[in-house]
């Protein structure tokens, strides 16, 4: 298969395995507020896609509505984007990923988009294990409609206006675990290294990846009383582990340094190396993960990192036993039954 021609190489710009420079992974100029956490996430998606040598033409980007949902326009111009309606990104990802199982699917949503209006679609997409990276850019507010509380806001959290949130938060990570998601992670937009590693691992994963990324809204929710301000999150971010990601390559065998490192191998041969900081945390233990998250939440901490991983869970196209070729490329010769078939059916109705 031919790929895009990489941009004219400048001597200084490094290229990846496909010969692309990082510039080939960017999108249009962001129109978000300066300092918005969402822009940092965009930057890491670009970095991770570049470093993982993702074939841009295979990328499909989906989103709902919100500041966060605008961001797919800001990365990977080589890919196709579909900015849909509020809360319905998962169904868009479902249809397109079924139509073409070769697509690399990235969905970007907000905490409002996914945990309020789109809760139903989030839940069912995870349940079906749609092959996609599902990013929730979580700022605890509705940015685009100017700062109302979202369903991930902590109980007792304050808005700049002084309004107090009376309701308990919904946690996308424990919810995803409950739904059987095979790759659940929480990151902080202010920790690029961790986010980058997790995104690279996410690209190698086959099913639904749920990434809850705490991403401060500098305009409506970055004041001192906010639990989703840069300062608060920095102070309460507890990374679980040092992560390393090694992408599978056919030429050299992957080597992971020995030590207190746990290694999780993906079906494609890629490996995530996990060196625990948080004592006794096992990211392959679903119930343990649940417990640890709940305990840390009770203490007001954000436990970040790869919370849970189960590398082998069949994604939807496999569950439906679809043909290997993308459905969208099947032609009339394959799809249209013969006149004899119609005749047979008509006979049965006589």
């Amino acid at each position: 298969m031919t790929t895009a021609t990489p941009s004219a190489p400048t001597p200084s710009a490094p290229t990846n395995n496909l010969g692309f420079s990082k510039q080939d992974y960017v999108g249009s100029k962001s129109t978000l507020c300066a300092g918005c956490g969402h822009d940092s996430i965009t930057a890491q998606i670009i970095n991770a896609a570049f470093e993982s040598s993702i074939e841009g033409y295979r990328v499909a980007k989906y989103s709902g509505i919100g500041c966060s949902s605008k961001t797919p326009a800001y990365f990977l111009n080589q890919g196709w984007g579909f900015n849909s309606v509020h809360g319905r990104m998962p169904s868009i990802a479902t249809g397109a990923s079924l139509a073409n199982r070769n697509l690399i699917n990235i969905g970007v949503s907000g905490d409002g988009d996914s945990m309020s209006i789109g809760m139903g679609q989030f839940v069912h997409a995870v349940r079906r294990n749609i092959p996609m990276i599902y990013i929730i850019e979580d700022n605890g507010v509705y940015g685009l409609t100017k700062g109302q509380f979202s369903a991930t806001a902590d109980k007792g959290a304050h808005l700049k206006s002084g309004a107090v949130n009376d309701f308990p938060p919904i946690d996308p990570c424990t919810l995803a675990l409950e739904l059987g998601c095979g790759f659940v992670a929480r990151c902080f937009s202010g920790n690029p290294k961790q986010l980058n590693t997790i995104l690279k691992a996410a690209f190698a994963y086959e099913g639904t990846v749920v990434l809850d990324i705490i991403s401060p809204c500098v305009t409506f929710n970055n004041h001192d009383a906010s639990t989703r301000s840069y300062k608060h999150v920095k102070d309460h971010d507890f990374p679980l582990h040092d992560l390393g990601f090694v992408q599978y390559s056919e030429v050299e065998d992957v080597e992971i340094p020995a030590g207190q490192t746990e290694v999780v191998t993906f079906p494609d041969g890629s490996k995530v190396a996990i060196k625990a900081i948080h004592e006794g945390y096992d990211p392959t233990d679903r119930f343990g993960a649940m417990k640890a998250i709940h305990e840390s939440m009770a203490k007001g901490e954000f436990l970040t990192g790869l919370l849970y991983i189960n590398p082998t869970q069949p994604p939807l196209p496999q569950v439906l036993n679809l043909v290997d070729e993308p459905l969208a490329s099947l032609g009339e010769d394959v799809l249209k039954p013969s006149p004899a078939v119609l005749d047979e059916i008509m006979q049965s109705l006589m």
Partner: protein
Amino acid sequence: MTASLAAPAKPGGAKTRINDFSIQVATVNGSGSQTANTVLLRAIFQMGVLVSGKNLFPSNIAGLPTWFTIRASAEGYVARKASNEMLILMNPETAKEDIAKADAGALVIYDEPLQLDKLRNDLSFIPVPFQKLVTASCPEPKLHKLVKNMIYVGVASRLLGVDMEEAKKAIAKQLKGKAKAIELNQNAAMAAYDWAMENLPDQDQVKVVRDNKTQGLIIVDGNEACALGALFAGVTVVGWYPITPASSLVETFIEYAEEYRKDPKTGKSTVAIVQMEDELASAGVVLSAGWAGARSMTSTAGPGISLMSEFIGLGYYVEAPGVFFNVGRTGPSTGLPTRTQQSDVELCAKCSHGDTQHINLYPGTMEECFQFSYDAFDLAERFQTPIFVVTDLDLGMQNWSSKPFAYPAKPYDRGKVLNQQQLAEAKDWGRYKDVDGDGICYRSLPGTPGGKGSYFTRGSGHNEYAQYSEKPEDYVAVVDRLKRKYETAKTHVPTPVFRTLGSAKGVLAFGSSDPAMIEAQDALAAAGLKTDYLRLRALPFTAEVDAFVKGKQVIYVVEQNRDGQMANLFRETYPEYATKFKSVLHYDGHAIDAKCIVDQITAFEQK
């Protein structure tokens, strides 16, 4: 002017109604009577007589009353007929009411213990000892309930003159593959027939006489016909959510897909079918799959379309293809979910917020259900937009006889899609550029290699290059082009069907109203009022429709809803002729019948 329609035969007087009658069977939902009813219908059909069957069922799994009507017509009229010549009363709950409503002179077959014969003296009562007959013919008491309904098949066959060989054949067909059940049911029906031969006097009010009108015909329902259309159209992604009366469309498709949409070598599926969490998600799947190059569809009813409407507006504006079947039922809200209506006309014509207009197809026959479903996928890809195939419960779930479907030889039209090479060669390609002047732009599919053709699809304002734009001129350019595209559709959608008697007076109907309209047109003509009938088959209105509207003095718009929704579309589209349109309406949940059309038009004419 008076027109009379199918009044039942009066006792002692009129001649025998040969192959021209209605039978109504009153039973309890869930009692398994559907098999017996279909057997009786099929047996008459196999005698060469045109029949149609209508199931009037409750929104309930078991226990509530249900009625099944079989109409035979030598003239080939297949609409519901308001009067019945034979009643079969199996439901003690409704028997008295059924008797009160019966048309004078009707034959009434009933379960003896119900003792109905004292209730009226203008009906011919035929008591039948159901339990006794079942016990005698079926050795296993557990199975008595299952075969009880076969007793009326035997008795009715005897009275009507239906050949028992045909009834047996019909039983075998209906219970295909279940040898024991076939035997039991055939025995029960035969025992009842023999009993009736010996114990009942013959009658000469209604008779079935062998004819040749059904040679080579099939019996099918519209949902199955639509499912077959989609099968042959090569649908590849289906997202759906169950709702009466639309579920059986996808469920039938699933059965066919099991057989005909598996790769012969690998056994893998060439279609993805997902029962989604709701209709919003179904709409999302349909549009995004269409966007990514699949042929996609969903099947739903009014409540589902309401939920989908935000997405359908998106599909219209971003120009994503997809086929939406709306099998109409009686609304609003849950309404009468198991009854028929054509009350989503305006909903589907303009579904969503903002300025939206959709291509709608209105099949009126089983062949059209098949063909239009096939065509809908071509139209969706050609016009890059949601297409509605609008049927209703009457078309979708009732039994219709039909000519076998012709093989859709026309190759698929996959529309204006640029492949890798075309994209490489294209100069200054823009996703929303109207290169050909028909309002339809060239699209690319996600995943196309080569580094050309990627674009960002958005429901917000965009320009010809699919870039974000809030400029007034960019916005207007897009929506005006969409209107142009809709104009182009006028030469691509099915044209109307005419049945003209040479008159300045027009009648207009669509979809399931067609059989009643044909019958009413004949009855009106027989009574001295000639009309020209236009059967509408699609939106937008084509040139033929324009000419009809211009040419007629008056147009009676016949439809099955309260508000005259189609007439409203006409008044809006042709404001200068607004006063020509007179509404003939039927909306009680039963399928429309000819008499109600005749009565209303007659009343208008007498004004």
